[in-house]
Every structure is written in C-alpha cells, then in structure tokens.
C-alpha cells in the first residue's frame, strides 16, 4: 500500500537539532515545511518529568531513550577481511530516537574546533610536510573557512544556550578562558557553570604544571535564559542525569528547550512522528529528488511525500544510510579508492586516568554532563606532528557527570567485580574517585568506511548499513602521547591509586563497552566531488535539491564533541539556502 501526501516545499528527514534549526530558519521564508521523525513525540513534561526520568535502570542501563537495535542498527566489522555482524546490543555508541533526537540525551559539551582542524590537510602539509601523512590516511580540508563559519557558531551557541568562559574574543586573550580557542566574536551567552571539587582539583594541578585550565563549555544553563526565538531555559540543579536522559529541569539545551515550541507556532510548519523515511525518490534523470518515501508506523503503509527540497537531518549514520539506499552519489570502494558515499567514516579516540583518593570525598551525586575544567594545551594546534609522529590532538577534562551506581562506580583494578570483595570495595571507594579524560581526534582512513551490507537487511527489507572500522596506529600514538603528558599531572595530585585507561598499540575496536556516540563522516563536505559527497553548502554534488546535515559531513573527526560544529554547519547551510538557493534553485558550486 502506498499513499501519496500533498506536496510540500521542504521535507526534513529527522527532527532533532538540525531538523529543528532548518525548520525554524526556512519557515521564516514562508515555505511549507514538513519534518518527518522516525520516533515518537516527546516534550519535557510529561516525557522527561521528575522523578520518572531519573530512573537509572530504565534509561541509564536499559537505554529507554534509545532506538532499539531490533528496529534500526548497523552491521560492524573491523577490516575488509572480516564478515560484519549486526550490532544487536547497544554498547560503544547509543543511537537516539524521537523528537529532539540525540539532542535530548546528550551530555551538553559544546565546542568549536581549533583553527587547524578546518584545513587539516593543508595545515599539515604546509607546516610539517606532506610526508608526515601516513599511508592510508585520507584527511582533507573543510571547503569553508573558520571565519566564514564563525557567525554561525556564535548563533548556535546563543540559540542552544551555552554556558562558558571565552578565552579569545577577536584575538584578545581573556584570562580564565581557553587561550588556544579559535577567536570568537562574542563571549558565551551564559557565564560558566560552577565546578565540583574534582574539576577544581584538576584545575589547580594543571595550572601548577604550566597548563591553562578553563571551565568546560556546555549546553547546561548556569542561569535563567531566553534565546533569540524567545525560548527559555532555567538554571541547572546539578542532578547528574544528563547523558542518556532527557532533562526534566528545562536546563539542558535541546531542540525542546531552544526551538520546538517557537517552531510549532509557525502555521507553515508541520511534523509527523512515527514516520520513518525509507529512501529519497529521484526524478528519472536522477539530477533532482522528487520527495521521500516513508513508512507510517501508525497506519502500517508506505507514504510518498513529494517535496521540492529534501534535507537530511537525521543522525549521522542514518543520513549516510539514506544516501546509500537512494543511490545519490557513487558509493565508496576502498579497494579502488573511487566513489564517495560512505567514505571517511571516523570515530573518536579517548583515554584517561582514574584516580582514587582515600581522604577525598567528591560527592558524585552532584554533576552535569559538561561539568568541570578543561585544558587545550595538548590540543591539535599545539602538537608538533613532525616531532611526535602522529597527526591529531586532544582536549582534557575533569568533572564528574554523575554518580549513578549502576554504571558510574569506578573501582580500583584489584577489587573483584562481584561478591563480598566487590561490596567491600564499593564501601571503601565510592565517592573517592575522580578522572581526567583525554578526548582525542580521529583521522579518516582508506579502509574505515560505510557501505551497504551484502547479507543483512532491516525490518523494511532494506540492506543494513555496514560499518568497517578499526583503530589505527596514528590515533593510538596520539592517545599514548596524552598518557605521557597526563602522568606527571596525575602524580602531582598525589592520589592513593591511579589507573591508566589508554589504548595500546594493536588495539582492536570493541563494540561492547560504551565509548562515545561521535560517529562522523560518510557524506563529507569538500571542494572536490571526487573526494566529497557535498559541496561547501552541504548540498549534494549529484542532486542539487538534496542537502545533508550532521557530523556525517566532517572530513575527519575533530578532537571535540561534535554538536557545536553540527549546529554551526546547519546555520551556515540554512543561511545559504535562504540567501542563494531559494531565489534560484541550482547547484551552488
């Protein structure tokens, strides 16, 4: 059964951060806009309300806010030689669903990449020579400059309501902020959040060791706030239920707190939930899209939704999957290096120390997803790639996010993982642990990529997307470098026990433990159609009325959490769609 709905000017596939941004920006042009959301509708009250939301078992352990792998997942393998198997049990990354998307269950850490990251290939070649780029690494430049993106970073920070301390305003270094950050035109819209004791301890130790600590920038309100759409946030109470949870307190930035109620007032905007887009439909000449076909889970039928403009605004992996399924752009082949869709998938390299202090009490029940202090002294701009033998960098952060006993109860390595010894260990160490994390970049490589699985299909009979990914020496070297730099700082803090958690040479990707949901690449933006899917306006090279948002546009992953960049790119694209594309729809490059 297929029904056809009335044509819209714009269809948005996915109603999270980028769908909401595109919706409210394009609605101002008077266009008829429809957002299709695979999941359910959700609002702060009743869906995130207290105390139902702060149920660790339901949401923290059993992932109540996440998409069930039985509905949507990917298959994963670590090399071209392995056979990919479906990711059946959520582990290394958590895929959200429903209105607001991952923007509802994130931790709130919000960054702008460092200056070198926008032109990483050119920067590396100019500064250290082309031969420092190892065989098989496929890094490339963003096709737009930081200067061009800056107003859009500024805009997103103000819309999302980010708390933080500027370190560089128009080139002027501000005491207490990050002196290494890319120059910003304005300070953050809200002052930084206060830090818990672990963050303060790290700040003092970092400073004593010659580093430049600054408060973590995050989408957690430090005061009451009203943004440009007149949407509101209230100050955070540090309950420690950010990541994996929706915020019951109107304190975490999300499409719900920043955009959605304002967007709902627009009479030319509509959204439908339980509407899972299956593919983008193409005109016979395959030069433009004619709309999308979605599965209506309420009626159990396929629906054709005609539209003049199709904007993919789903999660990174889903955007790539749809491009592959719809045959827009040539799929990437790692053997020949030809094709682009699925190319340059990347992830994130993390490491860190966990420290136990017999005589310190950190009150872990106090926390936020963006708590504490950071340093960028070992950020990518500050690394000599030639000397250190790797390309990349990391920012460090200490600041407890939560003290939930089910999944956040660090213990010394010699404590048994069950029984009386475990109980004794808990009694001895709960509340006495803190950690410093290094959040590192991850480059793109010839054989880390996404394509359609030859064997497995999803519930709609579509080929599942296959992820081929493994750790590479370059990034492991980077994180080991961080360990050598972190060790003396850790020792200076004089913990009772210190435990290092860094990947070793030869480490294989393990999908079981949670690492991060920062999946990037697959439909990257670039200036050459041979190595990118999207031009500098995030417009498909192959179908000019298809635009693609998300971290899937990153040519390689940055050293930061991706949301700030994703938001800035969405505002950048929205600006050019409004200004350049709508008056004369065509390929913009």
């Amino acid at each position, binding site marked *: 059964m297929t029904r056809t709905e009335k044509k819209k000017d714009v269809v948005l596939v996915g109603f999270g951060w980028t769908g909401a941004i595109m919706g409210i920006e394009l609605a101002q042009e008077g266009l008829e806009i429809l957002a299709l959301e695979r999941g359910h509708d959700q609002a702060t*009250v009743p869906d995130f309300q207290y105390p139902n939301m702060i149920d660790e078992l339901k949401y923290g352990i059993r992932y109540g806010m996440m998409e069930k792998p039985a509905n949507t997942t990917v298959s994963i393998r670590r090399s071209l030689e392995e056979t990919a198997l479906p990711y059946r049990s959520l582990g290394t990354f958590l895929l959200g669903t429903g209105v607001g998307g991952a923007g509802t269950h994130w931790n709130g850490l919000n960054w702008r990449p460092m200056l070198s990251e926008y032109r990483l290939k050119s920067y590396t070649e100019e500064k250290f020579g082309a031969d420092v780029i190892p065989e098989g690494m496929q890094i490339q430049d963003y096709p737009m400059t930081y200067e061009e993106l800056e107003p859009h970073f500024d805009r997103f920070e103000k819309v999302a309501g980010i708390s933080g301390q500027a370190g560089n305003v128009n080139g002027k270094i501000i005491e207490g902020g990050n002196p290494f950050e890319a120059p910003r035109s304005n300070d953050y819209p809200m002052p930084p959040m206060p830090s818990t004791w672990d963050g303060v301890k790290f700040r003092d130790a970092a400073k004593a060791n010659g580093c430049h600590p600054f408060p973590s920038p995050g989408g957690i309100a430090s005061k*009451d706030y009203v943004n440009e759409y007149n949407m509101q946030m209230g100050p955070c109470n540090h309950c420690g239920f950010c990541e994996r949870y929706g915020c019951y307190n109107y304190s975490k930035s999300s499409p719900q707190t920043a955009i959605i109620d304002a967007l*709902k007032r627009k009479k030319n905007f509509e959204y439908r939930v339980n509407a899972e887009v299956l593919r983008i439909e193409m005109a016979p000449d395959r030069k433009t899209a004619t709309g999308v076909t979605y599965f209506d889970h309420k009626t159990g039928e396929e629906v054709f939704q005609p539209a003049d403009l199709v904007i993919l605004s789903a999660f990174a992996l889903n955007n790539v999957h749809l491009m592959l399924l719809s045959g827009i752009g040539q799929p990437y082949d790692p053997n020949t290096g030809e094709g682009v869709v699925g190319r340059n998938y990347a992830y994130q390299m993390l490491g860190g120390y966990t420290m136990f202090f017999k005589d310190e009490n950190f009150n872990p029940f106090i926390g936020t997803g963006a708590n504490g202090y950071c340093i960028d002294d070992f950020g990518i701009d500050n690394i000599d790639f030639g000397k250190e033998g790797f390309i990349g960098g990391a920012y460090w952060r200490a600041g407890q996010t939560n003290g939930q006993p089910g999944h956040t109860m660090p213990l010394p390595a010699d404590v048994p993982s069950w029984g009386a010894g475990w109980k004794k260990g808990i009694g001895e160490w709960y509340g006495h642990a803190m950690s410093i994390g290094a959040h590192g970049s991850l480059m793109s490589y010839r054989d880390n990529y996404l394509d359609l699985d030859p064997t497995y299909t999803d519930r709609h009979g579509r080929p599942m997307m296959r992820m081929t990914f493994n750790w590479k020496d370059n990034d492991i070297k980077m994180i080991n470098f961080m360990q050598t730099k972190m060790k003396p700082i850790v020792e200076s803090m004089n913990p009772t026990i210190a435990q290092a958690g860094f990947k070793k040479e030869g480490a294989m990707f393990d999908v079981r433990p949670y690492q991060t949901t920062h999946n990037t690449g697959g439909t990257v933006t670039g200036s050459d159609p041979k190595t990118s899917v999207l031009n500098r306006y995030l417009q498909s090279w192959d179908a000019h009325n298809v635009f693609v948002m998300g971290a899937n546009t990153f040519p390689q992953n940055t050293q930061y959490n991706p949301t700030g960049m994703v938001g800035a790119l969405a505002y950048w694209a929205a600006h050019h769609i409004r200004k350049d594309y709508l008056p004369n729809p065509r390929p913009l490059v």
Partner: protein
Amino acid sequence: MKKLVRVLGTLVVLGIVALLAFIFVPVQRTGPVTQLASDFKPATGQGEYVMRAGDCLACHTNEGGKPFAGGRAIQSPMGTIWTTNITPDKETGIGNWSLDDFRAALYDGVTPNGTHLYPAMPYENYRKLSEEDIVALYDYFMHQVEPVSNKVEETRLGFPFNMRFGLRAWNWLAASYEAGFKPTTGQDEQFNRGKYLVEGAGHCAACHSPRNLFMAQDGIDETSKAFLTGGEIDGYTAPDLRGPASGPQKWTTEQTAAYLATARNAHSAATGEMMLVVRDSTQYLTREDNLAIATYLKKIGTAPAGNASAALATPVVTETEKMLTDAKADMPLGPRLYLDNCAACHIVSGKGAGETFPELDGNSLVTAKSSKGLISVILHGAELPSTADRPMKLRMQGYDKRLSDEEVAALATFLREGWTNKAPAVSAADVKAVRDLAQH
C-alpha cells in the same frame, strides 16, 4: 374602617400595577453615548481587538466547539449558566440583532425581546465601552465571524433566580450608572487608557473585585475602596491587585505588562483562569495597552509608594532557606517534600529563577485566601500558553500520583508559612476535595 379598606385596596391595586409594570414594561434601553458621524467606519482590526480585550471568545466558545457558538457552562453560585451563540447566525445566533440591540446587551444586559441577561455576562463593565468600540465590535461579529447554527442549552436556574425580571432591580444597584467611559481628571492619557481597558472591556473587576451583599461587583472604578482588592471565582481566589503585596504593586510596570503578554514574568506565572485570560485575551493587546493597564494598576495601588520595592531590594536569608540548606534528617515533612520535589526549580530561597521558575515567596497563588489554586497546581501541574513573546509552553508537572493528600497538605502548609509567607494551613481534606474535583 371603610376608609382604611379603601386605602388598603388602593395600595394593593397600585402594588399589583407596579409589579406588573416592573415585570412587563420594557426596560428603557441606553442609546449611543456619542453620536458618531454617519459615515463612521471602524479601523481594520479594531473590532477583533475589542473582542480580544473583552475576551468574548473565552466564555462564548465551548470546549472543542466553533468560535462564538456558545454552549459553554459557567458555574455560578446560583446554578449553571449556558453561554449563548453570538455568531451572526439568524436562527440561533445574533444575526438579526441591530446595532441598538447589540448595544443594549452590552450596556443594559437585555436581549432584543427584553429578556434580562444574567450578569455572568459582565455588562456592569461593558457599560463603559465607547460607542466607537461598540460599533467596531458589532461590525466584527456581523461581518467577520462565521455564522454557526448551534442551539445552545437554555439556562434554567432554580427559584427565585429563574424570575429573570428580578434582575431589573439588581440592575438598579449594579448597572445604573451613566453609560460610557469617564476618564479620571488630572491623570494622563496612559492612565486613562489603562483605566478604560481594566474597567471596561477587560472586565477585571468581574473576578478581582469582591462581590457585595447583592452579588454585584463591589466597586467598578478606582474611587471605590474595594475595587480590585480580590475576589473569588468558582472557589478560587482572584488575587488583590492594589495592596502593597500584590503583583502589580510589587512588580515594575514592564513586568506586569510582560505577565499580561506572556503569562510569565521575572517573578510569577499565570495559572488557572488568569492563564486563560492571557491565552485568549491579553497576549493579543499591544505592548502599549498592556503597559497602560500596568500603569493604571500601579497608580491605583493602596501601598505607600516605595515601601514594597525597598523591602524587595534587601536580600534576606530567611529561616526557611537556612532550614532547607541545612537539610537536617529530622526536618518536618513539608520542607522535606519541598527539597525532594520542588527545590530543583524553585530553589531553597523560594525565589525561583527568572521567567522560567516562578517565585513562591510572596506569590499570591501560594498565599491566596483559598488554597484551592495552590493545591490544584501541586496535584495537576500547570502549563503556560504559547505566546508571541514567549512561545514556550513551560509546564510544571503534577504530583497527584506521587504525593498523598496528607503529603500535599504538609507541603502546601509549608509553602504558605515558609519564607515571608503567612497564610493559614491546608488540611488533607482540602486536598482531597480538589483531588476529587478532577475525578468527576
């Protein structure tokens, strides 16, 4: 003796004649207070604006019904009053009404056939409307509202209130003043614009003034002491607007205007009936008009100027805040429940945060004479309407499933006595009564 009988007989006859006249002689209808030029045309949008200011939509539209088609039940102390169809439908609405008929309903509370309207229709206040606004409103209902055929249920109050002619006497008490608006001399245009909106179309006194012995509004302008000093609607308290602790006196005029435009300001948020007033009426007024209302209310305050704001300027850490901050294990149930359920947003200071989390210290809902409103918000939560200036439907969740009657009573009592609040305690029976209300 004979003479006495004759006199008595004459008196009886006269009495009967007077009674018959009282019942049957048509009421003298008030004419236009201003003679408008014969070619007078209301400005585009003026009629709709007067409708918004008068909030006609709220009462004359049933839940889920067509706009202005009536049929909404208004619970009065005398019984249920069903609102009428005021669409221009000729059979069931007011399609056959002339301008004079329309004016008589607004000024005198009578329909074209002479039937008296119950004063749930606030003609006591609408009597102040200008002729320009009446013509504009008439034009709006006749030409811009869709006619809807909808025969509404007839209002049938019990004896003696079903004797509608009795309202004639009531009107002598309540609505016999000279129709039309009389600006206060010596006050500026802004004050008088505010006065016009508050006393006339806005009919604020219908809820915010106490009722006198005869159930009439105790005062219809600022010269009456009781005017806007608080009333009651369906068991809920409509707060005082003139005393030193009242919102319009404590807040800046900007803040009062924001409250009217968005149902929220830096101190408080509108709930219950007032939330509906903002949703359907005041959010549509211009910024200037809401500021005029705020200015008028401020100027008619009974507080010695300056006192209230001086008290607000001194930050005091109250005993309540200290107790909540110490959070001793043996603290009483009320404050403990506050910490566990409320403090995350409303803060231990009871000051809330900006326009997002309302202040509870000094909040008129918290300290209202009737605790029904406070209990209702604790049990069922509250949602702010989406408005142009503040689109967010900020919603406080309800606690009806989490807290027992005893717990809500302890919490509400704590709120009413906490910080600088001083209001009588709430009992579990009070809570049960409000909880039962929702289950009907």
